[in-house]
């Protein structure tokens, strides 16, 4: 089991979608919202995901395929 913290950023077209609920149902990961700020145009959520590392990765790739931007919570780690 592993725990991973990521930041989801939602575009306007996904604001009304229950993405995190679906992620928790379609993958064997426990989701825990630690912080969030969502309004009618955009939103971000700091999410803790607990589960098998490969399953977590699959769930994140699924979220990206839905249109969510997934980042490390620290901001970009790769610098120029």
């Amino acid at each position, binding site marked *: 089991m592993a725990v991973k913290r990521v930041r989801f950023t939602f575009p306007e077209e996904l604001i009304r979608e229950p993405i995190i609920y679906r992620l928790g149902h379609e993958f064997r990961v426990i989701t825990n919202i630690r912080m969030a700020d969502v309004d009618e145009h955009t939103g971000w959520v700091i999410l803790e995901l607990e589960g098998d590392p490969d399953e977590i990765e699959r769930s994140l790739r699924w979220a990206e395929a839905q249109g969510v931007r*997934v*980042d490390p919570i*620290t901001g*970009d780690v*790769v610098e*120029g």
Partner: protein
Amino acid sequence: MSFATELRCRECHRVYPLQALHACEFCFGPLEVVYDYEALRKHVSRRRIEAGPPTLWRYRDFLPCDADAAIDIGAGFTPLIHAKNLGKVLGLPKLYLKNDTVNPTWSFKDRVVAVAATRARELGFQKLACASTGNLANSVSAHAAAAGMEAIVFIPADLEEGKIVGSSIYGPTLVKVRGNYDAVNRLCAELAGAYNWAFVNVNVRPYYSEGSKTLGFEVAEQLGWRAPDHCVVPIASGSLFVKIRKGLNELARVGLIEEPRTRMSGAQAAGCSPVATAWAERSMNFRPQKPNTIAKSLAIGNPADGYYALVQLRDTNGDCGSVTDDEIVEGMKLLAETEGIFAETAGGVTVASLKQLVERGSIHPDELVVAFITGAGFKTIDAVAGRLKPALEIDANLESFERAYGALLHTGVA
């Protein structure tokens, strides 16, 4: 000795020991080094600093590590140039350039890495790591080599050979990571958590970012112990932009300069402008972007200090430029042709933004302006190749030269 006392969360102000920590466990806010400013005030003086070495270590008392054990390859104390020619073109008679292209690995990253590496070694780390597409990798590799530490540098697998050489010459372990930018980014964040290495811009970031303050210190000292009226700074993660002002504030706090009224303006490439875009929309929430610009050293789509950069723009009555790739190249050429400084693309962003900010009235002609040129042009030759005046090619005789040069004079472009 250091006057650093603790780490403190910028958001909730929880306090942490001076260890390899970077984010608050409770609110995930960034941690920042706190100093005993009362003790510092009694200890420092202009004379003490002026008697120090011609490197950033002359400001040792303001840094979060023991300078007696510094990993010093000569970073910092770079020239501050009164840019009369560029100033004339832009209508800024009091324009100065802080030329950080002349650092040991030719970028300002030597400042942050010098401090991070020194602190990392103090904390007992043997391995210095980073994920980078250029300048940071060069600097980490060089400092680790000088310190006898092992460098582990992660780079995107498709990075150009020229950029790899600038790191691999120092003998680091280079790891090419296959995948798109976001995947590489996420993996490296995970690696930083999984291994007990000093990842310079992750788990030792509070110390790393303090190195940028030295640009503020130097500018104030080089101006005769005064703060500039206006700074124009390229924004990538936003840390440099915020820390230059912190440096000026600290000098005032310990009584070495008057309280700064410096306006802080930023510079971003239009192809990666999360801060400039939010600023233009008068929003304090930036939206992460997918970078698409020739200014690779500024290509941070999700800047760690983006929010704080926006706060500083607001609080200091600054502005933020956003310039196209063509404008970046023109900025590089303008800087080189007027002041003899060949800067990398980030320098083009700064000069082009400077021009943009003057044109829209955000910089006043009577202000003492300092623009920060953060990296050397030989790192990004591809950006200008093919866009410069071609050479004359001649046979090895006088007649051939005179024919070619005469033709040039005739066209009026000599």
